[in-house]
């Protein structure tokens, strides 16, 4: 995976598989401190310490359960190669928070890529989940909570052509203006 937004998509898919009902994705770029922070928080079934270890480093421990992919270890390695880190906070029955941080200007840092495409894919493909997306660059921010939109639309699905163009425009224009006005 060559984009951080694809990793976000991958982690969010894990949250969905873990039975989450509420998922919040945060992206924060701090150009002054030169850091890029990403997180995915869910209220899924959570993991015990053993599982967290396996998910982060699948080759160290003997794997007894399948269902452990390589998405997280690869992202962790990528972050550590860029003066960053990856942490998983998880409790069985409560949920999971995956956080990752990079040195923003590091030459090896993957680009964020198509953030709007990731958010749109998650929103439309998983209408049963309550999504909150937060993207900030320095002091400017954009937040999308899909609850009020769903309330307003009632029985009209996100895959309706009118709704799709609304959502796409909303995400793309806000993310574009964040990325162009705040980044020097």
């Amino acid at each position, binding site marked *: *995976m060559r984009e951080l937004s*694809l990793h976000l*998509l*991958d982690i969010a*898919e894990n949250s969905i*598989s873990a039975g989450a009902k509420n998922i919040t994705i945060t992206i924060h770029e701090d150009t002054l401190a030169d850091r890029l922070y990403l997180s995915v928080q869910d209220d899924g079934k959570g993991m015990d310490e053993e599982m967290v270890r396996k998910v982060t480093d699948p080759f160290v421990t003997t794997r007894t359960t399948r269902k452990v*992919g*390589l*998405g997280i270890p690869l992202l962790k390695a990528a972050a550590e190669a860029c003066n960053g880190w990856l942490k998983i906070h998880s409790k069985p029955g409560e949920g999971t928070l995956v956080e990752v941080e990079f040195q923003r200007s590091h030459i090896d840092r993957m680009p964020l890529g*198509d953030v709007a*495409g*990731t958010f*749109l*894919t998650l929103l*439309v*493909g*998983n209408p049963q989940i309550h999504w909150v997306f937060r993207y900030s660059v320095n002091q*400017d*921010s*954009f*937040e*999308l*909570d899909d609850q*009020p*939109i769903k309330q*307003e*639309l*009632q029985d*009209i*699905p996100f*895959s*309706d*052509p*009118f*709704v*799709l*163009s*609304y959502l*796409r425009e*909303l995400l793309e224009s*806000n993310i574009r*203006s*964040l990325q162009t006005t705040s980044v020097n």
Partner: protein
Amino acid sequence: MPTIKSLDDLKRIREEALEKRKVKTASGQVQVIVGMGTCGIAAGARDAMKAILETIQTENLEGVIVTQTGCIGLCEKEPIVQVVVGDQPKVTYGKVSPEVARQIMKEHVKNGNVVKEYVIQV
């Protein structure tokens, strides 16, 4: 920066969508399922999804339900897209690039003709 453009926009969108729905006769629902496991994502499932959503917009396709699923054990055939038209059996497509996705949407979802060259056996 506004969190949501405005809820009035959404009211209008809802009304337009409802209006359209009245005009259109029930032609049976179509379900489009995109594989979004790690394998699918790495193979380009998000781009396939984007192409599917774009075609819904450009072709103005009503009554299409787009959902996603995890890895179905055919990682080498990803990106995988499945189409279910009404009560017909599920058709599974493999190696779905954005171009193939657009073709599936136009030929299968819109006109009801299976795009045979990309069908895979599951």
